[in-house]
Structures are given as structure tokens and as C-alpha cells.
């Protein structure tokens, strides 16, 4: 509600990325935020996903107002509710695909054997079982992206957030990504994507398209 985000506040380089956004995102749907570069899509996504705080306004998750929660609670929400798929895979180099996938679950302290088993099964579901022990720097772009998707899902989040997920994928891999999104939807997950790729926002799997320009909502498709 009326969410604003100002970067470098009070400095000559002050920049307002969001200028009063009022938006309600429905559960169990695929929503895409579209708009030109610099329109505030990623900023809005990070605020919804509890990765950043708004400069003004309120954010609600279900019935819970989360804007003013201490960092510890925000982390807990981020970990249990959201799964992030970044524009870049953002995998930690030097670790194997399996270790990268297991990382979000480390702070929960679950049993190692169970976690490992779950991670291997999840990698297998996206055709990456053979790459489980490979270092992530040896993976292709598409493989790295799928590892990032598996990592986003390891804690069973109810909301999947993807920032320009197809920006570095070719057409075939983009289609495979959308198939995965369709599977999320079938599993009852809420999916929120930013993209200016028509392949994504024109896809039949998308329920709602929200347009942004200059940090404001423009219109809805």
C-alpha cells in the first residue's frame, strides 16, 4: 500500500525507484511485472520478498503487516515463504551444485541425510542428477539457472519470486523454464516474475500482467 523506495536519500544522487505503488497479488497465481529497464520492477520484487524495506508505505503478507518487523523475523519469512530465482544464477563458486542447493536449509539444522536426499531428488526432477557433484562454475548457463531454481525450492516456499529469469536463456531454455513455472502453479504455489520478455508475459501460464513505468503502476493486462 502506497509503497515508495528512495535510494541515496538526502544525497545529490538521490533516486526514487518506486513512487506510491498500491498492489494486491493473489495467491496460487502467476503474476508478471513488466516495464522498461529502471521502472522499479526489481525493487518492487525485493520489497515484496522481504529482501529490502520500503522508504514509505506498508507491505502485507496475508493478514500480517511485515514492513516494520525486525530483521530476524523478515529473514524467517524470507526463508520459509519465498524462494528466489535471480536474473543471474548467483550460485556460490567453488561449491558443488548439490551444496548450493542445500545452502538455504543449513540454518534450519535438519538432518543431513534427509536434506541431501531431498536435494538430489529435486535436482533429478530438473534433469540435473548427474551434475549434482559438479562445481557450479563447470555448469552451462541453463544448468546453472536450473540449479538456482532447485535452490529456491529446497525449503518448500509457498511463493516463488523470479527476477528476469529468462534474460540469459535461449528460446528452448526459456520454454523449459515456463514448463517449470506451470508445475509450480499446479503445486499451488504463487509465482511472481519480473520480465520484459514477451515469451514470458504472453505465455498462457501467466494469470496476470502488471505494468510499471517510472516507479508507478501503469495499467493491467
Amino acid at each position: 500500500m502506497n509503497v515508495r523506495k528512495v535510494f541515496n536519500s538526502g544525497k545529490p544522487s538521490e533516486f526514487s525507484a518506486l513512487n506510491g505503488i498500491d498492489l494486491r497479488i493473489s495467491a496460487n497465481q502467476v503474476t508478471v511485472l513488466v516495464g522498461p529497464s529502471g521502472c522499479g520492477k526489481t525493487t518492487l520484487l525485493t520489497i515484496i520478498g522481504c529482501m529490502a524495506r520500503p522508504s514509505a508505505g506498508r507491505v502485507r503478507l496475508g493478514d500480517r503487516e511485515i514492513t516494520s518487523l525486525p530483521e530476524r523475523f523478515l529473514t524467517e519469512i524470507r526463508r520459509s515463504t519465498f524462494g528466489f530465482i535471480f536474473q543471474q544464477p548467483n550460485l556460490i563458486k567453488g561449491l558443488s551444485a548439490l551444496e548450493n542447493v542445500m545452502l538455504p536449509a543449513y540454518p534450519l539444522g535438519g538432518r543431513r541425510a534427509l536434506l541431501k536426499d531431498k536435494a538430489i531428488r529435486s535436482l533429478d526432477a530438473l534433469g540435473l542428477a548427474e551434475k549434482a557433484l559438479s562445481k557450479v562454475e563447470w555448469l552451462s548457463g541453463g544448468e546453472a539457472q536450473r540449479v538456482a531454481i532447485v535452490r529456491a525450492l529446497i525449503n518448500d516456499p509457498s511463493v516463488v519470486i523470479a527476477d528476469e529469469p529468462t534474460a540469459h536463456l535461449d528460446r528452448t531454455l526459456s520454454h523449459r523454464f515456463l514448463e517449470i513455472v506451470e508445475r509450480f502453479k499446479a503445486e499451488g504455489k504463487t509465482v511472481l516474475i519480473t520480465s520484459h520478455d514477451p515469451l514470458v508475459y504472453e505465455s498462457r501460464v501467466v494469470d496476470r500482467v502488471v505494468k510499471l513505468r517510472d516507479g508507478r503502476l501503469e495499467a493491467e493486462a
Partner: protein
Amino acid sequence: MRAWIEKQRYLMDFTLSSLLRRKVKNLSLLLLYTLIVFILASAMFFTDSIKKEASLILHGSPEIIVQKVRAGRHELFPIRQIDRLKTIRGVASVEGRLWGYYFDPDVGANYTFLVPTAGSASVTPHNASTDVVGGEGDESAGAAVPSTEPLYRVNLDTLKSGTAVIGHGMARLRHAGTGDVMAFRAFDGTSMNFRIADTFSSKSELVSADLIVVTEVDFRRLFGIPVDVVTDVVLSVNNPREISTVATKVAKVLPDARPITRDEVLRTYDSIFNWRGGMMLVLLSAAVLAFVIFAWDKASGLSAGEKWEIGVLKAIGWETADIIQMKFWEGAVVSLTAFFTGAIVAYLHVFLLSSVVFEPALKGWSTLYPQFQLTPFVNAAELTTLFVLTVVPYTTATIVPIWRAATLDPDTAMRRVGE
């Protein structure tokens, strides 16, 4: 609890893999860190043990030594004054000693000539433990050197005029052994030959490396000392608690004499070895300082890659506390490994390899190095101080910047490095 332990295991795993991912940086840091701990611990182990060793030996030294002094200089002690000392209440026995130094210009070394007490089968300190009351560390002294075992033995039956019993250090330096003849220049320029009758046991090298034991007649001839004087006098006291009282009485009876108590000798040795250890540390302080700057820089600065990594970990659900714990383990692993490796290597260096690296600085500048094995002694308080001064600052230095970076929003941490 199980979840907590499992979580710590995950964090440790991640920490170790993080350390391995930055092999060059962390290994170079670990090596330097270990080297510094090794140097500091070596100096500490050596100084403590040699002080302990010297104290063990000196606990068996005479309770009071009386020296004649003229114009502040040590002078020979007239034998006729010995009877006056015997009249002091509390004095058990009084004995004159003959000893002196001889400079050998050929090898540039100083020897100590000594005349053993007549009639004794061995030159033995009064004892190491039972007679010494209230001396610090008496119990350990008794354990390390049984009171029945003399610090060095001289077979007086073999010692006749024209013969000498020498320490191993001398034997090494002069390449001499039993049966060989050594020549010394007497006070009047004439040459005196001594046949080596025996050598000392190597266990006593700390006190006997430079020692030559000769008969009284030969000693007086070599140094031109008249028969009515001795070098100094040693007193034993009935009640060790009265040593200082007896020393005061000695000063009254013989105003031109200087009584030196055993505690004063012990204090002097303590100061000498503290000074040597301290001097070495001062010389090495530049290296220590360089390491501190290097370690602080490495530990307190975060590379762009590390900041990005923190951003990713936070974005995927790690709490600030998790990241701080992980970095704490990282600092702890580096500093504990360095500390224990450095301390263990220093222990082996000092007690097994006789401090080969720092021998000249710590043992003194002498041509005659005693070859001795120190009794392992570790001062727990000093080791703890070394631990606190190395491990704690480093671990803290690793946490502070992480705390600053980890409290940022993950979005900010990731954007900051342009990722």
C-alpha cells in the same frame, strides 16, 4: 539441541569449504600467523624453562656467599676472618671457596676454575628440595632433580696435582678427552700442564660446560693466590628463615664484606633470562607488528566477492547471526590452527631440538655453548596470555566487518558490488 548441533556442523562445513575456496589467501595468512606464534612461544618456553632450570640448580647453591669488597670491587677473603663468621648465631658451617676465571685467547672462551671441597666424593649442592623452605617451585624442583642426585660428579680419587676434571663444553671446544694434556698460562707467564683425569656428566652442562676442577695447590700456583686467602666464603644456616637475619649480622661483623643470599642470586638469574627473552622479542617486534597489520587488513577487510556472497546467503534465507557465526568459525579455525601448530612446533623446537633457531640470542653470546636438554616446563598463565593476545583479537577482527555487512539488506549487499 540436535538442530542446533546440526546447524553448527553445517556452518563449520561451509566455513571449511570457504577457507579452501580462498586457499592462497588463507594459507599465507595461516603460515605467517603460525610463524609468529612459533617465535613468541619459543622465546616464552625457553625463557621459562631456563629460568626454572637455573632456579632448580641455584636452589642447591649456598644459602649465603660472603665476598670481601674493597672500593666496591671483589677482593680475596682472608682465611683468618672465617672464625669470626663462625661465631654468628644461627650459622651452621662456614667454608672457604677457591674459584676464578681464566680467559683462553686461543679460542676466545672464558673457563671457570674451581677447587672442590676436600673430602667430598662429589660436588653436590646441599640439596634441591628438602632443605629449602618457602622457595617457590620447591615441589617441582624435587620432582625434576631428586635430592640424592648431585648436579655433577667429580671423582676426587682421580684428581691429583697436575690433573684436571673438565666439563663437556670445554672438552668439545678443545677437542680434548681423558688422558690428554692441556696447557694454561700461569699468573707469572709460565706454562702449566694439566692431564685430563675425567669429564663431567653431560646432564650437568648448564652449570659445568666451562668448568675445570683442579687441586688447591695447582689453583694457587696458576693464579698466584697466597695460602692465607680464599676467593670467597659460603655459609650454611641452621634455619633457612633466618638467612636474611644472618646476612645482616655478617655485614655487621665484617663491614668490608658483602653477603649475597641465595634469593638475590636467583633474582639476578631471573632478570638475566627475562632480559634475554625480552630483548629477542623487542628485536622481533617489527615482525610481530607487520603481522598484526597484515592480519588486521586481511581479517577486517571484506573483498567485493565476500560481500556479494553475504548478500546471496542473506537472500536465500540466512540470518545475520548465521553469517556472523560462520565467519566466527572461520576466524576461530584459522587462529586456533595457527596457535596450536605454532605452540606445538615451538615446544618441539625448544625441548627436542634445543632451540636451534634462537640459540645464540637466548643462551648468550659465548664461544662455549652448553649443550643441554631443558626439562619441559610450560607456564600456563603465559601460554593463556599468548592465546588471548593472538586468537581473540584475530577472531574479533574477522567478526566486526562481517557484522557491518551482514546487517545490510541482502538487496543492498548484492547491489553494492554491482552484481
